[in-house]
């Protein structure tokens, strides 16, 4: 065809075709989404520390393994209480003149999603130990260690944040491990990652592809306490229930766990967190964050009371339900 024998015509037509399609499927939707969406009313802008921490997060390429998106599918429920909406990302703008916007949605989930990590794992102590070497707290982890975010000091100052690293991971180094400002900022950023509640009246997108076999369909059996423990408790209290000395208390032989007289406190800790013992880090209100049902709590308690040589009384979801209602009320009135 004569038309195609003219290089100017041929390449102009091809380019126009491509450019028009580009504008239709990329540029216009991008501009629309940029202009139409505003941050949610409850969203807080990053603090100065968290913003610096985000820069550390970006510089070290954490997005290679950690996504920050809760998809509207049932399997993503464990990463947040609701699917992500455009407004969640609306407040994120260009990082600097040299760097583009970092929504950090990611495309691979070699590690857990971090959308709601600030709620799920708010403990600074845990995060610092985990950053120094993830295998201290999660044995099977393949995450890189970040010892260069810490320094070793013989005599830390009053303001220094000392990280309790087990001797095995000190590699013969003497002194105390002290978090640098980079490490503290990074943790501040992680702590700031919380899903914001949608304002009243805004419809919440549904989770699709619901799992057909729900745990509650088998009456009498209930949820798997061991799996719940692995998913929610093990990273601090460890698989052997011994915790981490100086950071997380042991559950093995614990009075709170074993003595039935402490059941109310026990449920209270699971649902509302705990920070009564200065020698250990604070515990997050994990039960409330993860929306535990009385079946879940009973399963966890029964698992913990029957593992690692513990020998406590079995509980039923019914009695837990009563206590849960009570401690919820107590937490609300406090």
């Amino acid at each position, binding site marked *: 065809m004569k038309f195609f024998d003219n290089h100017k015509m041929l390449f102009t037509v091809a380019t126009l075709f*491509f450019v028009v399609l580009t504008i239709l499927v990329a540029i216009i939707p991008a501009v629309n989404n940029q202009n139409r969406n505003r941050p949610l009313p409850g969203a807080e802008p990053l603090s100065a520390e968290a913003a610096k921490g985000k820069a550390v997060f970006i510089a070290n390429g954490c997005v290679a393994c950690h996504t920050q998106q809760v998809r*509207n599918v049932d399997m993503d429920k464990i990463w947040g209480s609701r699917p992500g909406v*455009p407004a969640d990302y609306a407040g994120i703008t260009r990082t600097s003149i040299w760097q583009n916007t970092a929504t950090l949605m990611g495309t691979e989930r070699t590690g857990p999603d971090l959308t709601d990590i600030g709620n799920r794992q708010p403990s600074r102590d845990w995060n610092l130990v985990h950053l120094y070497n993830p*295998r201290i707290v999660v044995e099977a982890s393949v995450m890189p260690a970040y010892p260069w975010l810490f320094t070793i000091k013989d005599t830390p100052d009053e303001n220094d944040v000392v990280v309790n690293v087990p001797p095995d991971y000190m590699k013969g180094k003497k002194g105390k491990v002290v978090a640098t400002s980079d490490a503290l900022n990074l943790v501040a950023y992680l702590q700031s990652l919380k899903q914001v509640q949608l304002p009243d009246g805004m419809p919440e997108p549904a989770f699709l592809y619901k799992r057909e076999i729900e745990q509650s369909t088998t009456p009498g059996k209930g949820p798997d306490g061991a799996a719940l423990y692995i998913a929610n408790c093990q990273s601090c209290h460890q698989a052997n229930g011994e915790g981490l000395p100086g950071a997380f208390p042991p559950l093995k032989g614990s009075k709170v766990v074993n003595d039935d007289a402490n059941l109310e406190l026990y449920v209270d800790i699971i649902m509302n967190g705990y920070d009564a013992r200065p020698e250990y880090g604070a515990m997050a209100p994990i039960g409330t964050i993860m929306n535990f049902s009385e079946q879940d709590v009973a399963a966890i308690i029964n698992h913990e009371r029957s593992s690692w040589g513990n020998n406590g009384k079995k509980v039923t979801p019914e009695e837990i339900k009563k206590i849960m209602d009570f401690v919820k009320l107590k937490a609300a009135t406090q």
Partner: protein
Amino acid sequence: MQRLKPAITVPFLLCILMMMVPAAAQEAGKTGYSLLATGPWWRGLMLALAVAMLAVAALMVLKVIELRNSSNQRSGADEKERYQEHLRRLTSKQIDAVLQYKKKQGNHTGVMRLLITCLITATLALSGSHQLMAQAPVSSEPSSLLGEGGIIITIILVSIPVLATLILLTVRLSNMAKRYRRRAQLIEAAAFADYLKSLPDEVVENVLKKRKAALDYSLSQQELSGTQQPDDARGLLQIKGEPGLPVVAAKKKALPRPHIDPRLSRLVLWYLGTATWWLLFGTTVGEYVGIKFLAPDADHLPWLSFGRLRPVHTNAVFWGWASLAMLGLGYYIVPRVSNVKLASIRMGWYALYCINASVVIGTICLMAGINNGGGEYREYTWPVMLLFGIGLALTLINYWKTIAARATKQIYISNWYIVSAVIFTIVIALAAYLPYWQNGLGETIIQGYYMHQGVGMWFMLFTLGIVYYFLPQQLNKPIYSYSLGILAFWTQILFYTLIGSHHFVFSSIPWWLQTVAIVGSMGMAIPVIAGTTNFLMTFKGAWYKVRDSYTLPFFLVGIIFYFTGSMQGSAEAFRFTNLVWHFTDFTVAHSHLTMYGIISFLLWACTYAVVPRLTGREAPHWSIGAHFWMALVGLLFYSVPLMIGGTLKGLAWMQGKPFIESVELMGPYWLWRAIGGSLMWLSHIFFAYNMYKMIARKEAIDVRETAILQLQKAATLHPEPIA
């Protein structure tokens, strides 16, 4: 005929029996496994089984008919004719035996018996062994309905006895046929022996002796050549030396191409040479990153940490290896198919500097922790990418001017693809790096567009262009269909541009945009099938060339992966497959099947095709073979375990298992990935060695060439006096 009756009736009975088997099996499917019967693939399997059984039934009927016919033939056909046929088919040795026997006939009748025994053993051997009968049916009780894995187990259990029955019936029937045939043949052999005994002498003389002479005839091997040395006036003969016992297959030598500007050669070789360096560097980094999955504490240096090295690997192989190799090959092809010189060799060098500088600086920046903020393949900051863009712009001007000055009327299809790829990539880079539409979700939408257009419009489009040149050249025949190439060109633009957002299915980007991307991914079947058909049909009639070429196997692997890798990408875009595979290592396997299986294999094919033409030197064929096999086997070891592991990981997530379990289960698959990756990496050492051999090797002194040169030198120093 009487004897035949059971032979016919039994199979018929068996046929009826066998027809009942699928019915029974289906009944079991309806009653015992009501849940399974509803599954479409269960129905598919039952259908396949039923078809198999029908096929066996048909086979049996055919066998019976055959048996019947042969018995009719035996009883009715002219005996003499058959004996004549037997006579014609006697081997030289057998004829010898008959002649010997005829000589001694009268005093040594025993010889006849010997011949008969010979014949009988031969027929026995023909009739095959009974060993097949040993196949026993594996009976297996279908177990009760199990959980999810139970579906598979149940179906296997159900199909084992059914299949075993089928096999047994087939074996039984064919054995029966064999037994019957053997008996008939024994009778025939005895009759034939009698016939031989009674042969008159003139037949022996005229028929058998002539036949023996004919069978014993053999060529002298010089019928065509004669005994004289050939007179090769046109230089057509290429006589290989004594082949000896080759350890590796001998391949055809590359043809020298004399009329290439040495300055252009140098430019192309530098592109390919630096590309080879980036391949080595990038995959060394990749190998190390892969090992870190197994040994996360291998080092504790910030510059070598996983998150920083991963983009170093991807960007080095993208912008370093593949891009430079493509551009270098483009610098060879564009002027060649335009039948003019390259517009500006100097500009080509500037582009080379820019792109190499971009990758060097980009690598250092990434390792130092300076990146663009998280978008995959968009990790280089804009000043770094600007250098790459300048390189592209210079290349575009150069290609454009060359094509504008072309001596051909048409623009060869290669140039359509190549020039469009360069233009589109500049558009893509602008869309990705201009800040006006990058806030909030805008960044994500652009990211989806960018990462997929980078792959589809830069690497794939450009590589297709160079394949459209080098594949026909290596096969020494024109491309199968120019029109298919044009169809693929326009449909690639139409569908590929739409599919970017399929990397963010179920994310908060607009649902309609996700749907458009999924539909576009389906549409990609058109250009992919058009392209694959075109390439494979070009091979038609020239498949034999694959055997003794060392470039064509690379092309073939690249084309196969072009089809499977691309179609796999389309399948991955479905919403359901996104549930299982998204975010898992399956994606990593896919990107290696495509970027490595398609792009790298095709680039190697073209590199091995062009470099010997530029330098006149070839790499050792064994070493090219080592490169090919290690890369191919390595890629399969790399990707198949990752696909299996990725699927298991996705299923574990869907079942709500604790996350850390999905990390632990990947252990063995990551190990296999590291093993496959090591093979791939080793193959690149061979590739680098081959490049060295093709480019830098100092040639041993060519005695003939040197002698001529010395003669010429002498002639210029002492010119003959002009008469």
